[in-house]
């Protein structure tokens, strides 16, 4: 319960930061949309219409109140530019975000399902055969993948799998009509990229968490009671390593989501990251705020889940004295 409320406080604090950061950006939607030659009165009128003339604190609480009711407001862009135009094309932020969010969750979800088991298996086996050639090459390669920026990894994939050996498309445009198989095919490269940039970290941490535990006395005891190497790692070390491992996985899933901002841009994938970049460019505050809030909440939720796994996997916390 305490963790949950702390999580809520974090999200709340984050919303303040998000809001104030965008308020301090030079220029706003009105100046951006009307251009430099706009008259002061026109800018003023547009601001009044959008509610940008109110003091920031009032705007913040108006916005927050609406968010609690599930209303993220309306996007600034797409609204009628001319006063009196009846065809208001303004779109609800929720309607704008939900399909994009689904796309992003699909992308990161597939990447996670690939990355987590792979890195666990690689990490555990590297710990099992510590200091072997396999272990050294696995940790070495993972260091390279962790250190490369995601756009670089993405371009390498494009070069290898789309240009030199054209197996997968470079543009990952999907829409409502795409079938599941099509989606897998089109998102293959961004999925590979996200998998690769997060796997190295998870694998290395799994390996070191297990190796750390291997030096404890109960592992020596297990060996002396005749447990095999496999049994020592899987039955004795792994159950005690879940807490650190789940923390790393949570951080990496969050990182994956954030990494998707760049990856979606590179592959022109219609996800929330790409939407956010575009909206920042337009100073489309309601959309940017909503996206940022979603990112922040995901981060908090993932960490909560990791803490929960840490508690469940530890009898000392689960069963008090």
């Amino acid at each position: 319960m305490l963790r949950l409320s702390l999580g809520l406080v974090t999200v709340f604090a984050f919303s303040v930061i998000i809001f104030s950061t965008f308020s301090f950006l030079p220029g706003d939607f009105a100046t951006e949309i009307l251009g430099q030659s706009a008259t002061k009165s026109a800018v003023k009128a547009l601001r009044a219409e959008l509610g940008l003339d109110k003091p920031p604190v009032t705007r913040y609480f108006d916005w927050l109140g609406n968010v609690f009711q599930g209303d993220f407001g309306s996007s600034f862009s797409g609204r009628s530019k001319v006063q009196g135009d009846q065809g208001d094309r303004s779109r609800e932020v929720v309607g704008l975000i939900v399909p994009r969010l689904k796309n992003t969750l699909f992308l990161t979800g597939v990447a996670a399902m690939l990355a987590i088991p792979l890195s666990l298996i690689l990490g555990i086996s590297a710990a099992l055969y510590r200091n072997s050639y396999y272990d050294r090459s696995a940790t070495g390669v993972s260091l390279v993948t962790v250190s490369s920026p995601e756009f670089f990894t993405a371009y390498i994939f494009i070069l290898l799998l789309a240009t030199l050996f054209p197996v997968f498309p470079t543009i990952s445009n999907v829409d409502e009509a795409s079938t599941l198989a099509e989606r897998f095919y089109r998102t293959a490269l961004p999925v590979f990229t996200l998998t690769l940039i997060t796997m190295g970290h998870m694998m290395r941490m799994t390996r070191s968490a297990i190796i750390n535990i291997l030096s404890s006395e109960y592992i020596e005891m297990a060996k002396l009671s005749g447990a095999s190497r496999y049994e020592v790692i899987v039955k004795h070390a792994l159950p005690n390593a879940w807490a650190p491992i789940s923390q790393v996985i949570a951080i990496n899933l969050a990182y994956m989501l954030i990494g998707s901002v760049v990856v979606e841009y590179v592959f022109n994938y219609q996800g929330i990251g790409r939407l956010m970049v575009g909206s920042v460019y337009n100073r489309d505050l309601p959309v940017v705020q909503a996206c940022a809030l979603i990112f922040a909440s995901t981060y908090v939720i993932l960490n909560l889940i990791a803490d929960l796994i840490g508690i469940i996997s530890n009898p000392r916390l689960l069963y008090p004295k």
Partner: protein
Amino acid sequence: MTLNKSKELLLEMKNIHIDGFSDERWHKILKGVDLTLHRGEILGLIGESGAGKSTMGKAAMGYTQPGCKIIKGEINFNGIDLAKLTEFEKRKIWGTKISYVAQSAAASFNPAHRLMDQTISAANRLKINPTDVLKKDAVQLYESLQLPDAENIGDRYPHQVSGGQLQRIMTAMAMSPRPELIIFDEPTTALDVTTQVEVLSAMRSIVDKFNTAAIYITHDLAVVAQMADRIKVLRYGEEVEEAETRDMLSNPKEEYTKSLWSVRSLIKPEETNEDYMLSIKNIDAAYGSSKVLHNVSIDIPKGKTVAIVGESGSGKSTTARVITGLLPQLKGEIIFDGKKLSPKLEQRSKEELRRIQIIFQMPDTAMNPRQTVDEIIGRPIEFYQGIKGKERESKVIELLKMIELDETFLDRLPSELSGGQKQRICIARALAANPDLIICDEVTSALDQIVQEGILKLLQKLQKELGVTYIFITHDIATVKAISDEIVVMYQGEVVEQGLKSKILNPPYPDYTELLLSSVPEMDPDWLTNLLNKRSS
């Protein structure tokens, strides 16, 4: 308990050489030790830390710790040379034919599994008996080891039972596959004396019951005297002597063996003083919501030594924390040299801080590993007395001489010192503040017998020269006899009694003092038997 020559040989280790790798080079840990053991026999292996007794015990299983290797030697167990077997073949013997009971039960149980699953895991591997039969057997073992609620205790996790109970469960775990040999590696060292008695008697009776052979490793002669048929003394990786228990105790041949219990002959004549250095009055203290001290009042006479004794959890160390101001009391007051001390550390003056110093149990963790001896001792001199430069250096050397070391130690790091030397440096650091009162919190319990004796003698010498007052916190009665003038007995956060050493250590005793004193092992092989008979009658 006499050795029967016609007994069948179980284990024969010949000319064992083991090297260990540390500090970037190989060291010799064992230099050609022999060992024989017959079926149903218990051999005691004793020596100080670093003597190689634990390495020898593990080598009896054909196991060496990571970073160690068997250079030479034969380990014939039932006619098989364990030194020649592969890991895979040895695993079939470990845990089932030979099992191991480790020193720290709390660290040796896997925190993630229930006790019952761990107890039967080795026997389960044999695949002779089905799991439910093994579980029933384990419950019977728990019962014969006098564990409370034997039926259900196996469902608990390691953190849910006490240290003494864990140690008994580990014995049950070792016994579960009915091995031919059990290695007990300092199984009671981490326990209180009162708990130690229970665990010792439980282990002895179960080993007797199944006629299992055992190697019992310890540094405590009095403990091994209760368990072993024969005793082998090791030092620096070599055998000093071996004899049957009674012969060894009544007639030790080697000087070294004699010195092993010399600390018990150190006795100080008691004196008291009406003038108190420190009085604590009606102190209550708590960690968070759990109250650990109840109305504690203690008087410490000037220039004398007061020993506070009790088992773990009795509040001895908490009392020290309250006196130093690390844990402000909830109620009551502390009078130091006639003046009231404020409960909080931050509100005490530098002068008050200087006059009370503390020496901790673990010299390893009490010193900054990256500071040299010069920096460790020099800092309090500079901080409290404002002495710098050349004068400071000569002060440090003076202190080193006082603790019987010299200026060659100035540039050493803690890692380049032995355990006894480290504790001496900690003493010098406390003295550097020129204090009136030094609190010694279990300062000798991490040290070997001989080193202990040296430290205790040093502390007595310093008291004579400097007139410093000691509060000596310990659970070891031998140490108390050696150093104290007055004794305070604590139990569950309360003072049971306080008085002169002669009064406390002689009858009549309050119940708890009686229990505590009678639980201290004596150098008599019949001590445990007699004690158990006396208690049960």
